[in-house]
C-alpha cells in the first residue's frame, strides 16, 4: 500500500467513526427502543463475553464485530424478544447476530458510493469466557464503544487494505 493510500484510508476511517456510532444508535433505538451513548474507549465488556461478527465483501472488505458481556447480551435478547421468549443461549446468540447484521447493513447503507457493491455474510456469534479475537484484516480499523444500560458494547470495523 502506498503512503498516499494509507493516508486516504485513515482519513476515511476517521470520518466513518460517527457514522458507525450512529448506525449502532439507530438500530438500538428502533429495534430495542433504547438509547446507547458513546463511552470511553477504555470501557470493556465483563468476562463471559459474546462477540457477533458479520463479514463484508466487495468494494468494502473486512469484518464488523459487536462484543458485549453475557448479561448485556441477555438483556439485548430480552428487549428484542420479550422475557418469556429470550430464554436460551441459542436465542441470545441469534439476537446478537441479527443485531450485528443490522448494524453492518445500516452502516454500509449510509456510506456513499457503495450501492450494491458490498455484500454481507451471514452472522456468526462466538461466546465464552476465555477467548481472543484476531481478525486477519490488514487495513485500517475503527472502534466505537457505547453504553447499553450501563454495560459497554464494543463495535469494531476491521478493513482489508
Amino acid at each position, binding site marked *: 500500500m502506498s503512503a498516499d493510500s494509507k493516508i486516504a484510508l485513515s482519513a476515511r476511517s476517521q470520518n466513518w467513526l460517527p457514522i458507525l456510532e450512529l448506525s449502532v444508535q439507530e438500530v438500538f433505538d428502533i429495534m430495542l427502543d433504547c438509547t446507547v451513548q458513546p463511552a470511553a474507549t477504555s470501557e470493556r465488556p465483563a468476562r463471559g463475553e459474546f462477540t457477533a461478527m458479520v463479514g463484508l465483501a466487495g468494494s468494502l472488505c473486512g469484518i464488523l464485530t459487536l462484543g458485549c458481556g453475557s448479561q448485556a447480551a441477555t438483556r439485548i435478547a430480552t428487549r428484542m424478544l420479550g422475557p418469556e421468549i429470550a430464554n436460551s443461549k441459542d*436465542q441470545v446468540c441469534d439476537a446478537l447476530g*441479527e443485531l450485528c447484521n*443490522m448494524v*453492518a*447493513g445500516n452502516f454500509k*447503507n449510509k456510506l456513499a458510493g457503495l*450501492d450494491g457493491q458490498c*455484500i454481507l455474510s451471514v452472522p456468526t456469534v462466538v461466546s465464552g469466557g476465555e477467548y481472543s479475537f484476531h481478525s486477519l484484516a490488514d487495513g485500517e480499523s475503527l472502534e466505537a464503544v457505547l453504553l447499553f444500560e450501563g454495560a459497554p458494547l464494543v463495535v469494531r470495523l476491521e478493513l482489508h487494505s
Partner: protein
Amino acid sequence: MGKLRALIVDDSSVMRKIVERSLRQAGIDLEQVVEASNGAEALGALRDHAVDLVLCDINMPVMGGLEFVRQVSTLELAEGVPIVMITTEGSESHVVEALSHGARGYIRKPFTSDQVKEHVLPLLDKKP
C-alpha cells in the same frame, strides 16, 4: 380485511418473531403464521399452505430471498400473493432487483411497526 395467513422467511428465528410481532402491532389480524428459514423451505411451505402475504429476508443460506422470489414467479406459486422483502440489503440495486423479480415491497432493517404498516397494508387492501 379479515384474518390473514402470513409466511415469514428468515434464517433468524429471532427476526421471524420480530416480524410477526410487527405485523400484529401494525394492526394486521393474523390467523396463521407459517415460518421458513430459507427460500427452499419457503417454496415447500407455499406448496403446503395457502397464505395471503409473504415477508422474506434476502441473505439466507441454501436459497436466498431473490432466488425465492424468482422461483415463486417461475413456478406460478402463490399467484397474487404480495411478497415484501425485509432485509439489511438496502441498496438501490437490491431494491430494483427484488422488485423486478416480483416482490411488491421492500422494507429495510432496522424497521418500525409503522414502516411495516406503511408498506404492507396498501398491498393487502389491493388484494383481489
